């Protein structure tokens, strides 16, 4: 099978998963006990006229399968319903707005920084396996893996925010502040980002480090590594030309999947630091039983997973000539 067929097949399978996600997204939110209509209009904050409109729009007085058709029709038009906590605001507007931007910047920054540090440490540790540095970073990874992220955030607020007074105690910008120009705003914004950024970087590094180190150790057992060394190549050539190139392959799919977090946000960190991103939105929506927003977020996150996977597989196929298309 050729590359083109492989990609077509992969896209076809992604479409099947897409259908599955659409169906799941409808039924997961209908399995709760009680009146299924509660999911869309059961909220007390809703005005009666609005309720009438919604019942008609989503066919809530009709049987479940008809409601499913209505759901598909609205989805095709890009209509995900209206939020309860911000009455009258469309769900799409809430998700695809400022909050997405906030999450995107925070997650993008912390993933990039921790990838650089984690992978760098991974290469050195794998090459000098059993050295002091290797053991130290391994221990660090094991410990940070066991620390709940939200508690790490609490500690950072307590020490850097409360005792050292270096960072703000929460939020995305200082409430009520007036800015003379755009730069002042940006400075305030990034000052608020320091705390959540450090928290996320600390909790991500160990993960990237472990993957990089373990992949390299696997590569080291391959025959071509022995050959390369037997040929008398320089250590640096063996490490970067032979080992790194092969170890990068699994890393590609790891990195591609991290894309998902750009859209789902870091629920724990965002909540602790009151960072107004999508992760905090999930928490607030759960607290306020804002089911339309949650349904929209579920769809949004699941689709980003789908696309990230598709991209990962296709990149992999393009980069690695050994892949068996099948």
């Amino acid at each position, binding site marked *: 099978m050729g590359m083109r067929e492989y990609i077509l097949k992969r896209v076809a399978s992604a479409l099947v998963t897409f259908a*599955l996600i659409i169906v799941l997204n409808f039924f997961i939110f209908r399995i709760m006990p009680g009146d299924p209509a509660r999911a869309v209009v059961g909220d007390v904050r809703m005005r009666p006229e609005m309720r009438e409109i919604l019942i008609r729009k989503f066919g809530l007085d009709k049987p479940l399968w008809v409601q499913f058709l209505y759901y598909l029709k609205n989805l095709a038009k890009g209509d995900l319903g209206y939020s309860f906590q911000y009455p009258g605001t469309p769900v799409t507007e809430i998700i695809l707005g400022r909050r997405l931007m906030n999450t995107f910047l925070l997650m993008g920054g912390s993933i990039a920084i921790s990838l650089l540090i984690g992978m760098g440490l991974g290469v050195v540790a794998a090459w000098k396996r059993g050295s002091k540095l290797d053991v130290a970073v391994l221990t660090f990874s094991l410990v940070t*893996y*066991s620390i709940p992220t939200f508690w790490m955030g609490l500690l950072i607020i307590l020490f850097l925010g409360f005792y050292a007074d270096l960072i703000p105690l929460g939020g995305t910008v200082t409430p009520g502040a007036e800015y003379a120009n755009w730069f002042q705003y940006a400075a305030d914004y990034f000052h608020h980002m320091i705390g959540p950024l450090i928290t996320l970087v600390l909790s991500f590094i160990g993960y990237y480090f472990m993957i990089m180190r373990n992949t390299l150790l696997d590569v080291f057992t391959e025959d071509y590594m022995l050959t390369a060394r037997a040929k008398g190549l320089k250590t640096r050539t063996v490490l970067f030309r032979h080992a790194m190139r092969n170890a990068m392959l699994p890393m590609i799919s790891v990195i591609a999947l991290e894309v998902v977090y750009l859209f789902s946000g870091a629920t724990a960190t965002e909540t602790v630091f009151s960072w107004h991103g999508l992760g905090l939105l999930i928490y607030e929506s*759960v607290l306020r*039983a804002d089911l339309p927003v949650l349904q929209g977020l579920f769809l949004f996150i699941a689709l980003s*997973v789908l696309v990230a996977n598709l991209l990962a597989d296709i990149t992999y196929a393009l980069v690695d000539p050994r892949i068996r298309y099948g």
Partner: protein
Amino acid sequence: MSRAAVRRRTLFKRISSFWQLYKASKLGVFGLAVMVAFGLIAALAPFLTPYDPGDFVGKPLESPSLKHPLGTDQMGRDLLSRLIYGTRISLAVGLSASAMAVLIGAVIGLVSGYFGGIVDMVLMRITDVFIQLPTLPLMLIFVAILGKGIFNIILVIAILGWTPTARMVRSQTLSLKERPFVEAARAIGASDLHILARHIAPNVVPLIFANAAISVVNAVLSESFLSFLGFGDPRVPSWGMLLYYARLAGATVNGYWWFIIPPGVAIMLLALGFACINYSLDQILNPRLRRR
């Protein structure tokens, strides 16, 4: 010697040779020690605590003193006593949620791998979707649907935690069912159920244990997070719940360090213990790692 005696003896030999390998790993022994220590604290809680965890025994938000070694919370309850009793809940929730997750995963993996075909395809598609969705946001969405409470927390952790076990058990089953002893069993007319229960399942058990250890880590961490956000049950205060009360009291912005640090350290130690156990089990049981 009877057959049962022979079987007991081989089992004993297997266990003792496994222990020889296991005790060579410092991390593994450390993890086991942590697990036993927390088990003892949980069992002996009534004898270790100076006060009843629910009683209002002091002034609100007292900092640590001889009378209250870890201070008090906003209602004047003794935090050391609450921490010790919290061990029971955190340990119980972590263990039961992960047991449930691993059980679901093992059954799905066995069925999927053994029967193959359309069953396998459907189950693995579902696994694919679940395994890649980010866990924490999904947990919150499920809590919103199912409602608060400790039992729902266990359920949510299990519903979202079975996928890695399912995958691993499936691939092991796929290779096991092609082995000669399974073929022999089938040739003498053994039923599918018999083959699964007597020939395949016992060979997957070590793998399940390695998975269970890491699954406990995830369960403990997830529980602490969900309880921290206030989705737990105030009648059964876990460590995460202590941190929830700390947040309500504004512990970070007021500098009540004694309210924040001890519960987090406890969660970290418990998770670390199981992570170490997982690490050494993986080193012993995963053949891919042995050749390095």
